[in-house]
């Protein structure tokens, strides 16, 4: 079936004229129509626009143009602004917001000829680890629809797990690509901070947010990232480092690669999870890599550090949603204060408000030093720990999540337990490092992820290591029942 082909295979078929982009797009639109109602993975369908873009891609193909993504469909996380299409960020406050411009990520993929099918559900403003905070309702995990797909890129992950598109964009502030990728049995990469432009990506925590992609395989991720990545003068924090040809670098030999096991990740790790990671390490050793244990002593402080830094930035980033220029405005405001209070009070959900309040608190006079400044110091220590570790090893590996997907409703009323779901992923965001999650097995029939973390701008190494793991294993080929 078309939806189980790699992007490379689809591109070859398009190039050979065996299938048109319009047919391919139609195939995925039909799948979405049939399967999305049970998942709630997509919240906006752009059917007409998709068919037009596909027809345009077909014309380019007919004219002899070739490209890795030319004519390939995708789904964008609804955090990316898409010109003329509702961009809600999973929030009531932007439910009526039609973006007047394209995010740089959207522009680049559009220019490459990729075809947007629609927009994916997500935790409100990317704040959540279960996709239950969305104004549009929870997303269901295709492996077990009573369970969450993870978050915040839960819609993208569920859509990938259910094979509703060849690839889906995502964003990762504390694990929002890697954690849902793990919980839905797909591949996800969060690049180095600054590798992909943040322009047009609605900000949650600016110093941590990074766009990436969810795919079936590491090879697919390489093809997409090569298009998404690159310096953007519109984003001052994007970095002007040349983008390697990731697909061409997938076969870099692993012989002699030094893989570090994060000791801190194994403290208290559930036995079955630990066994999956051990098995993955055995695979790597069989591919010629050397494994050794390393320690990042400050890593256990990641979660509290993150939950100071991220809310602080979000409390300021979300101030622009004030009911004045766009988005939700309360009915019949009495005066300016009433307009602000009710537009924001009615427009934002509980988790977003919790983080705005936390962030406002930690930045307040009298608390700033004890919270925000202290957190920044710890952040530097964690970054330094990673830097020291990468003197000894080329890659770090560990679990992506502590547990497989949990039941919808199980943790939503217990924020701290929910926050701890990101315990293994947050470190890479605090240090700005690239991280990936690849399927590495199952617990109770639910997929689990192996996490790879590399030094800054080592995406080629991560993708190569993940690709070669996927050639040696079959976990990434597993498709949930009913979605084959």
């Amino acid at each position: 079936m078309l939806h189980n082909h790699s992007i490379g295979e689809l591109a070859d078929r398009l190039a050979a004229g065996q299938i048109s982009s319009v047919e391919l797009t139609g195939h995925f639109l039909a799948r979405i129509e049939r399967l999305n109602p049970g998942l709630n993975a997509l919240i906006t369908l752009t059917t007409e626009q998709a068919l037009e873009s596909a027809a345009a891609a077909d014309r380019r193909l007919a004219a002899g143009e070739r490209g890795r993504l030319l004519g390939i469909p995708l789904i964008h996380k609804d955090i990316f602004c898409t010109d003329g299409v509702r961009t809600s960020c999973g929030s009531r406050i932007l439910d009526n917001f039609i973006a007047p411009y394209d995010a740089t990520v959207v522009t680049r993929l559009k220019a490459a000829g990729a075809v947007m099918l629609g927009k994916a559900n997500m935790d409100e403003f990317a704040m959540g680890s279960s996709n239950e905070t969305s104004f549009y309702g929870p997303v269901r995990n295709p492996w077990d629809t009573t369970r969450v797909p993870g978050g915040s890129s839960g819609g993208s992950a569920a859509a990938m797990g259910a094979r509703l598109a060849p690839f889906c964009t995502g964003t990762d502030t504390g694990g929002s690509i890697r954690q849902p990728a793990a919980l839905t049995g797909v591949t996800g990469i969060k690049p180095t901070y600054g590798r992909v432009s943040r322009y047009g990506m609605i900000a949650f925590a600016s110093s941590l947010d990074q766009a990436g992609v969810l795919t079936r395989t590491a090879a697919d991720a390489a093809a997409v990232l090569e298009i998404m990545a690159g310096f953007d003068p519109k984003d001052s924090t994007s970095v002007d480092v040349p983008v390697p040809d990731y697909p061409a670098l997938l076969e870099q030999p692993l012989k002699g690669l030094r893989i570090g096991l994060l000791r801190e990740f194994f403290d208290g790790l559930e036995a079955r999870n630990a066994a999956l990671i051990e098995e993955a390490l055995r695979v790597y050793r069989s591919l010629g890599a050397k494994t050794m244990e390393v320690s990042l002593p400050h890593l256990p402080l990641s979660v509290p550090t993150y939950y100071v830094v991220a809310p602080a930035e979000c409390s300021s980033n979300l101030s622009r949603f004030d009911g004045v220029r766009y988005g939700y405005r309360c009915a019949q405001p009495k005066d300016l204060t009433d307009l602000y209070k009710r537009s924001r009070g009615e427009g934002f959900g509980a988790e977003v408000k919790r983080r705005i309040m936390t962030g406002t608190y930690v930045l307040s006079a009298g608390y700033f030093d004890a919270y925000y400044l202290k957190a920044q110091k710890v952040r530097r220590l964690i970054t330094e720990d990673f830097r020291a570790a990468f003197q000894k090893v080329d890659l770090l590996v560990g679990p992506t999540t502590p547990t497989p997907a949990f039941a919808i409703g199980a943790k939503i009323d217990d924020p701290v337990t929910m926050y701890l779901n990101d315990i293994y992923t947050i470190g890479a965001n605090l240090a700005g490092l690239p991280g990936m999650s690849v399927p590495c097995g199952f617990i109770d029939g639910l997929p689990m992820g192996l996490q790879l973390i590399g030094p800054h701008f080592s995406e080629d190494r991560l993708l190569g290591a993940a690709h070669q793991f996927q050639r040696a294993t079959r976990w990434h080929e597993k498709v949930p029942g009913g979605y084959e």
Partner: protein
Amino acid sequence: MADWEVVIGLEIHAQLATKSKIFSGSATAYGAAPNTQANLVDLAYPGVLPVFNAEALRMAVKFGLAIGATIARRSIFARKNYFYPDLPKGYQISQYEQPVVGKGSLAVVLDDGAVKTIGVTRAHLEEDAGKSLHEGLANASGIDLNRAGTPLLEIVSEPDMRSAKEAVAYVKKIHTLVRYLEICDGNMQEGSFRCDANVSMRRRGADKFGTRAEIKNLNSFRFLEKAIQFEIARQIELIESGGMVVQETRLYDSDKNETRSMRSKEEANDYRYFPDPDLLPVEIDEEFIDGVRATLPELPDEKAARFAGDFGLSAYDAGVLCASRELGAYFESLVEALGAAHAKLAANWVMGELSSALNRDNVEIGAARVSAADLSALLGRIVDATISGKIAKDVFEAMWSEGKTADDIIEARGLRQITDAGAIESVIDAVIAANPKQLADYRAGKDKLFGFFVGQVMKATGGKANPAQLNDLLKAKLAAG
């Protein structure tokens, strides 16, 4: 009153004359239709990001170099968080802990000729807010975001000023400087140069400062002076009647000439400053600073010192001529045409006739109706004794109103000075003959009557007699008896 000393510190907001905004590509021109110069970044649309305009940095560094300030090799943009409709992001991007310009100072000349050095604590870059509009809107407020994102340089002084006059002298000096540097147009009506004053009182001789009030909305030098004077009187009266000055922000109302409380310290926002994660620290090297230094013009103080030294002008006159770059240039082109020997004449004319004509018609020197070339031609006619200084003033007025050259007016009106001694003598003879009583009184010792005879001769010649010659000849004739 003598028991009290006022302490004044000033915050000046100078809009930098960049073509585009500090963090977006929108134009900064004044007066466009509302919201036509606001793009998605200025409107704070979801997902947009700021990109720093390096031109604003160059201008800030230029200012820092001109006041001998330390230039930070690394400065940081922070967010100042508060909600207001004219602040679309809900925060203003400003510099907080690490501003681009550090400590500097400048010297001001006071009315009595004394020179006082005023410290500048810092100058930092920030973005301006938009404007709320209330006029012509029933039951609603409008927001114009054209100004949102216009670059500002906030120049913060030390609390070094001890009178309203010192404060005005300081602000005028900064005003002159930013225009010299061509980093701000200095237009106070349009708000591109604004000033807030921190005013407190203390017993003369005390070490500690009193509680200060911050006065806003001072959009002219005159209002600055009047507002400070009002505030001094208000605070003294308050303290002397047993009250206490409270720390607050007060608004100056120029119609009523008073300051009114706007908000107290308790009502002040907690701005929750933190480094803006969307912008990298601004890092500059020696090469950059040297590049900016190379663009510095001759500064007003340097120019004034040169005028005083080269042309023998008083410090005061030199200072007046250097109040703007254009005025200085106008004066210098007169001197170039007439020669340094006539610099004093040129200075008197620029500060006298020219300045009063400019003030009367409320035009800038650049729009003067008599060009430097035309004025130097007129002054040339005084130098070569074609006309007297007095006649020249009439000619100048005619040039100003009619736009003709000095020579055309002199010829057309027959104003050429009489320098023929014989001709002057014959007029003197006639005047003396016609006034025998005055002659007798003069000779009896009433010296003051000399002026009477001068006046009569001038009247008879239509003011055209060469004054110096007339003086000599008349003295001789009257004495001749």
